[in-house]
């Protein structure tokens, strides 16, 4: 077995936390709904956990480690609260109607009235914030913050064609997430 030499775990962890911090905060905030102020508390707890347990995790696995820890923290938060603060949000995103709309969203050009539906919004919000950091940031920058292919290409130092390819992959992942509800 080949063992990688120990790396500077703190530097890797700080780098990954800075890279994925916004996405992880968005993950918490989207699920906490009206209780969004707790997202910052959970981010602090996540950092504390990572500082204790993730400094020896290889850099390539850190994002995955943080996401798992975030899911566990959220589950613990809900257990402590005894009820999900997001009951309505989850109900909206998890109902049959949400599933039907999600299927249509990825397969049909939806009319304006369906694009207004709260069930669809909640499902999309959960799906986007569950994506890995790179894909999530790309979709948000392009679709929700209005960045062009050229602007993204310049910002991250790749060609416009590569941006198109990455957006395609991000949409493919989103399509998959839309069809299965996840917390």
């Amino acid at each position: 077995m080949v063992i990688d030499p120990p790396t500077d775990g703190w530097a890797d962890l700080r780098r990954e936390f800075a890279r994925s911090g916004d996405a992880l905060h968005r993950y918490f905030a989207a699920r906490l709904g009206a209780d969004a102020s707790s997202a910052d508390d959970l981010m602090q707890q996540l950092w504390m956990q990572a500082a204790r347990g993730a400094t020896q995790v290889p850099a390539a696995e850190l994002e995955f480690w943080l996401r798992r820890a975030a899911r566990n923290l959220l589950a613990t938060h809900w257990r402590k609260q005894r009820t999900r603060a997001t009951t309505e949000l989850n109900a909206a995103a998890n109902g049959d109607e949400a599933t039907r709309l999600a299927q249509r969203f990825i397969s049909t050009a939806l009319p304006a009235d369906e694009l207004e539906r709260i069930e669809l919004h909640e499902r999309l919000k959960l799906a986007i914030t569950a994506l890995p950091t790179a894909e999530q940031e790309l979709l948000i920058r392009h679709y929700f913050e209005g960045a062009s292919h050229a602007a993204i290409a310049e910002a991250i130092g790749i060609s416009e064609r590569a941006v198109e390819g990455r957006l395609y992959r991000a949409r493919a992942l989103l399509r998959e997430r839309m069809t299965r509800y996840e917390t």
Partner: protein
Amino acid sequence: MNEHDHNEDAILDRNLREIAAKLTLPVRPGAAQRESWRSGERSMQRGNDADALTNPKHHPALRSESRGGLMQTKGDRRMARFRLFTVGTAAASVAIGAFLIGNGGPQTVHAATILREFRTGTWRAVQITIKDVDVDGIRVNGEMEVGFCEPISISEIIRTAREGDLAEIPEPKFDAAYFDLSVVAGPGAEADVVGLNLAVRGGVTAIDTPWVYLRAESFPDEIMNEHPEVRLILQMFSRGIMLDQIPIEGDITEALRDMSFDFGDDDEAAAPAAADNASAQLQVSARVGADGAQAAAEIANAKAELAGVQAEIQREIRIEMDRAKIEAEVNAAADPPTAEDDAKQEAMQKMLLDLLSGEATPEQLDEIAEMIQAEAGHVSVSQRDDGTYVLIARDIDKEDEMMKNAVVEIAYRQGEGVESLRVVGFGPANGEILIRFSDLPAARAVSVRQEMIDGGVQRASVQELMKMAEGMMKQAETK
């Protein structure tokens, strides 16, 4: 990208553009907000730097290296959940025996320390590797991982298992479980499973729906000969298929609490046979998400019906929509176990559990010592170059077919606790079982699934699989 993918992608692109102005995502946090997340960094770093960089316990790869050959991951990692309780109790017997038959001196001190740590140590995840374990002609290889949200001790696991009533567990700490099994039924297996060659992986977490990956090289010869049309289904499984999002209502811990069993609710199902030496077919449906009280009543009723009957689930497990259907053959026992046999077995298990969970009385210890002294003929404790103490027990039970050649090793590191428990020479194929304890969260239930998806594994829901199988069977019938 084919035309269909291209069209779907274009539609999603269009819909995302349209909905973007209407959908409000959580706002991007500001710099001060980001800074606040790491407010405790300095003190954390001071406290952890030395430990994190020198303590190999924080990463499985480094832990493996630090332990030398004993803990090395075995080449092709495969795992099975298999007779764990039997193995666990056997190993416990040996460990307890080692403790009790020690006759003073430093070895006894080490053995006592190792066993105390084994009982009281806490871990985040337990990883079990099984290699060439052969029971009744069925060879199992593989691995399993069970993780907990918070550190848990073996005493607590055993207490939970002993209570047996999941509804009584106040706050289940289960986080994730993963298994990867290879099961091959050789010529020495029961006639109706000979020829089976199956690889199965699966995972479940406290917050995800379960998934299972199946790949079959061959089904049992008996089924293949009697139902040639099954070959079509085998073709489907020979390429491997992932059953994803297996329906579970609510989260898994809730589902476990609410599991209920329906007996004989199908027209085809016969009632369980009375204890009259006959055989009967019994259909058991396990439905998740049902009412807990009703489930408890149904289980009690089922137990009453099966009293005095030796039941073996040996036919098939079918999954239908929202329920798992288990078709079992119930053999009314020609020689049902006597009340004395049951009492003896129960007493033995209770004593072991009492001891491992720290609840045994001094009187029980004397009794256990008497029973166990005969089980381990030779026990030693040695220290390796890396500082690990290893307790080795041989000649455990010469009368037991599975354990007669077995050697049990418990590795212990001072200041860290028990690192692993290994049984080698287990069963007729001299199989090996390695149990390791980790501080890291169990992650493979999620990571392996994602790796397989990224690798392009064929996926289907349970409903889709049923439809595919149905279509194939119809196709076979029309030929």
